[in-house]
């Protein structure tokens, strides 16, 4: 039979368990790029107008609903808001701002190569999706590093 831990060991074990559990739940790498792709589809549709706009907007909305459902089906743990620290929240917010900044800046750069707004937005979507995919795990590690070390009650 296992012996009860000493008080200091018990406190350390609580922190270790909570950090380990937080590291175990990860956002799928495809999620952020997929959201960007659907947003891009709607943005390109807006440039095309008419039937294409309606079709792409409806497809983007349906895709977003499907993504949300897929993510909800994969969720294995729902964390309390208290697991977030100001530092972790700030980092996550800055990452989201950086994704939006890439999405906003790329059309300006693409504008030097093409006058087509639809192609500019498509290029922005592609670059932003790649950026989001490449940095998802990095931001997760940042958030985990700045959320851990506390005993969440």
């Amino acid at each position, binding site marked *: 039979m296992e012996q009860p831990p000493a008080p200091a060991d018990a406190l350390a074990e609580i922190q270790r*368990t909570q950090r380990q559990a937080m590291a175990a739940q990860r956002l799928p790498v495809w999620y952020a790029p997929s959201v960007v792709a659907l947003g891009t589809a709607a943005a390109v549709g807006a440039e095309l107008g008419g039937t294409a706009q309606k079709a792409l907007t409806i497809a983007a909305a349906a895709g977003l609903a499907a993504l949300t459902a897929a993510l909800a089906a994969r969720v294995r743990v*729902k964390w309390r808001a208290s697991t977030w620290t100001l530092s972790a929240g700030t980092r996550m917010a800055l990452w989201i701002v950086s994704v939006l900044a890439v999405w906003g800046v790329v059309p300006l750069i693409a504008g030097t190569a093409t006058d087509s707004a639809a192609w500019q937005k498509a290029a922005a979507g592609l670059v932003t999706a790649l950026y989001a995919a490449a940095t998802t795990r990095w931001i997760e590690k940042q958030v985990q590093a700045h959320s851990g070390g506390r005993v969440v009650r």
Partner: protein
Amino acid sequence: MNLDPVIHAPARLQIVSLLAAATEAEFAFVRDTLEISDSVLSKHASALENAGYVEIRKGHVGKRPRTWLKLTREGRRAFTAYVADLQRIVGQPLTPPGPLPPDSRCQ
């Protein structure tokens, strides 16, 4: 100071610690994260449920059956008190510094 015996057992301490950070966690997630078997988790989850500390909810995601665990309000209160007790013990020396008074020896 008496630490809550329901929580102060290695496996149950891990389970309650994980659940304290969550509003709800899937049975399989707790099992995989803590690297314990189904039967061990079932046994301890039942003990925690009997103590009124954990609520076990069975449901479905699509066609797949899922079991969810969450701390009850009483369980969260007990864990908070448990952590406070630990911190009090760790914050204070376990034995008073300096020589013990003669009447406290051999007790």
